[in-house]
């Protein structure tokens, strides 16, 4: 298994709305790259952020920290933040720490 592959594609889906499609492994070390993308999204005044995680094969606590951080920042500004189409691994890990509410319903 490739333990250092992480790709993040961004797509503008509306005014102040962005979708990030993440593929690969969010380890404690690659989580920094993920954080940088979300940082940019906030810096660019997006207040509706969708993170598609259908291609994420590994999500560590470092990755959850980043999700939680930007969930709180976006919600704190009155915006929305969702995890969309979680892979089984992502669903399993978010369930483990009872953060399923981040999932797009």
């Amino acid at each position: 298994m490739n333990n250092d592959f992480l790709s993040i594609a961004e797509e503008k889906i509306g005014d102040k709305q962005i979708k990030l499609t993440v593929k690969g492994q969010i380890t404690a070390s690659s989580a920094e790259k993920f954080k940088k993308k979300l940082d940019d999204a906030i810096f660019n005044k997006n207040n509706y952020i969708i993170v598609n995680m259908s291609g994420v094969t590994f999500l560590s606590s470092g990755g959850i920290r980043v999700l939680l951080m930007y969930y709180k920042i976006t919600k704190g500004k009155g915006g929305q933040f969702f995890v969309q189409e979680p892979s089984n691994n992502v669903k399993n890990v978010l369930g483990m720490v009872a953060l399923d509410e981040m999932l797009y319903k």
Partner: protein
Amino acid sequence: MKEIVIDAVIENLTSVLNFLDTEMEEKNINAEIQNNVKIAADEIFINIASYAYAPSTGSVCIRVEIINKEIIIEFEDSGVKYNPLEKEDPDITSPAIEREIGGLGIFMAKKIMDTVEYQYKNNKNILKMKKRVQE
């Protein structure tokens, strides 16, 4: 039993995960268990890399053994004495917006593994965790 001795720096996390993958794949451990065990190992390694020798650096010895339907992983470092298991579990009942950002890693490792034990012996931190492999 296989072991690696590696510098405890965050850049080596991939090597640690690859080492564990190789061992678990060789023993045909199913993908879900493999993934969960790596989540636990990711956290333990990063803790050692971040705090054990700070601000300097040092090494960590990682051993893995898969025997009698059990995965046993041991981390041994000579850094500052620290028992991560003494850390209080985070409150996971509150809504996400009220959660603390950190503190989930060790909690997840404890949840994933069947046992996680810590001992300080001969000036070394030894963290041993075990996970039964389902039939």
